[in-house]
């Protein structure tokens, strides 16, 4: 069973993704509300996959992504983006994100991206 770290500053969003993942038999390695926490938990838990929101306080998703990639260049990170963040998404992919999903989330999209990334 693959473990997933969910990063999003909105608890609601985390809940949604968690829900989707749990229904599909994923283990939740942890939840983080900002990039700072995300990097910490990543170090601790070594999850198989990270879903990473882009806009967050403290440290945004892009920076967190870069730090995680520096820790483990094989880390699988999927970006969660809002509409209109095209250039950020492209930056993220350049920085090594495997894929991205666009809010509002649809369960099948999320699962498609995760399954393809693993």
């Amino acid at each position, binding site marked *: 069973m693959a473990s997933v770290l969910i990063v999003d500053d909105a608890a609601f969003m985390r809940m949604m993704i968690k829900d989707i993942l749990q229904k599909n038999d994923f283990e939740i390695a942890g939840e983080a509300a900002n990039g700072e926490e995300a990097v910490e938990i990543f170090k601790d838990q070594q999850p198989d996959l990270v879903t990473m929101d882009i806009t967050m306080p403290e440290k945004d998703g892009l920076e967190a992504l870069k730090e995680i990639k520096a820790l483990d260049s094989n880390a699988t990170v999927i970006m969660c983006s809002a509409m*209109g963040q095209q250039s950020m*998404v492209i930056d993220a992919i350049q920085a090594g994100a495997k*894929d991205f999903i666009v809010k509002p989330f649809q369960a099948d999209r999320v699962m498609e991206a995760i399954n*393809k990334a693993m």
Partner: protein
Amino acid sequence: MSNSEYLDVFIEESQEHLQTVNDSLLQLEKEPDDLSLVNEVFRSAHTLKGMAATMGFEDLAHLTHTMENVLDLIRNEELEASSEILDVVFDSVDDLEEMINDIAEGGSGKRDIQQIADQLEAIQRGEAPSAAGSAEVAAANAQTEVGGGAQNLGESYDEFELTVITQSKEQGFSPYQIRITLDENTMLKAARVYMVFEILEEAGEVIKSTPPVDELEEENFDHEFIVTLVTKESKEDLNERINRISEIQNIEIILIDPEELGENSEAESEPKTEAQGQSSKDSAKAESPESSQPVQQLEPQQQKKDDKDETTKKPSEANKTIRVSIERLDVLMNLFEELVIDRGRLEQISSELDNNELSETVERMSRISGDLQEIILNMRMMPVDQVFNRFPRMVRSLSKDLGKKVNLDIYGAETELDRTIIDEIGDPLVHLIRNSIDHGIETPAERLDKGKSEEGTLVLRAYHSGNNVFIEIEDDGAGINQQKVINKALSNGVVTQEEIEKMSDEQIFGLLFESGLSTADQVTDVSGRGVGLDVVKNTFESLGGVVTVNSEQNVGSIFSIQLPLTLSIIDVMLVELQKEKYAIPLSSIVETAIVNKEDVYSAHNQKVIDFRGNVVPLVFLKNVFEVPEAGIEDEYYSVVLVSKGEKMAGLVVDSLVGQHDVVLKSLGSYLTNVFAISGATILGDGQVALIVDTNALIK
């Protein structure tokens, strides 16, 4: 080709006819009952057909012919000019355009027109066009799939691309055509495309993509695109790698055979090479029976000659132009500027010396350098029409996609702008227009509810004023909700409450251009408003331009872009303030006047004059530029009346000196953002005069 001397005329005229067809069709769509329009299209198409047939461009002739058949039915009122039918006609016009462009670039004008011709024929037979079209596409797909190796997704390659494909195949790479279809609901298509390209570029080299990469980045495509790739990877590996990306609906990979493509293209260029090929063969044959040796020696030579002929011939078939890099023009311009400064000095010296022969020569030189100047400037100028002419089609298809009715009016398309600017403004303008259609203009139902006419109007306007060109995009749509902008800006932390209170309406709307601000309740894939507008602003600012917005709720919005002409040599009126000389661009001056002080009135703490029935505010340049007072007061004011668009102001100066050509020099990085000064210039006597930016003085 024997007809080559007519080719220029042919190309030029064909383009004119196509433009007519395009314009009339757009018009026809608005007034489907106006048969005179059909007649016009018909006439142009007919002429085009005749010309194409004469020149031996069969595909061109064939397609115009089938198009003509459909138009004939419409003209005889046997067929209604429905928008589906017009779609097909528009598509065929696109094809015609491609062919003519190809010919203009020295190509053969061949093109695969079977599909579109079939669609037109289907219409002619009275079948519904859309059904026929998709059936046709399906059939075409089926064919390639059944054939397995039948080898083309409908791409065509130019000679260079073919060479690359052939060579890479020789080096053990495999060329593939890959058609990638994105999921219909894909958001952020450009990012998806980026991911695909990243993978493809990792795997091999992308030779070509249709639509081209920049359009893909702009999201100017539906859901699919075709990429030609040379790679060492196998088809299956490629498929798997691309499939890793989500939101991809379908991938179709076909191995292409360069020889076959090559044959096609050879067949395409046949008319050109045939004659030569044959004659050389003939001559070879004729000579061979007599003695084979000399022929062998001859042949390579001949071939070389042929090659040369071909290369020299190609460019001559296009328009008689050469391409010069813009940098070279810049250098030319700089050198010329130096010359103009020296010319000024010479004029000054010759007038002081008062030597007949000298002043005659100097005069002559001035005249010639004046002509030279005009030529150099004109080389860099292009009408904005270059950018504007693609908008009618874009507006049409966009409003169709969004289910809105939009009428586009374009004014001032002949306004000229520096080439470098023209190149840059296309994309941001597209963005603003999309914005206006998507968010500004309401759906027909909403408009009717609000008591507006069902059809929204979008006005695109360009005009010169002062040292600037203004481009305005005005819509009569919903306008911008100011409160919403404020709320959004506050919640995003772009501004604080106190700042808002100090801001004018225009400044508040200007917040729209801050990054991350989107007031759209619902974001569509046409424009998100928020990420785009700050890019738009940056682009214009990097060109030295300024963008402003004004809007009234439910009345409409107007985006106004002020761009510099970057004409570095301008005509100015020199004026004096005490002992300082200032230059006012002639292009913004309406006239000069001497006004008696008694005729100056005060209104709202502002001195004004009554000028031909208009109340015009006075601006005392002495105060603006803080020129020390000398004390002697005249009872008259010398006033230079300047205008910006419809607004006017009177600039009060001490005296008027006269008209001069001057070289506009920037103030350099030490003195940026000086209020109302756009640059400086060196006068004939070595004095420096500051150039007044009148637009900054008119509020």
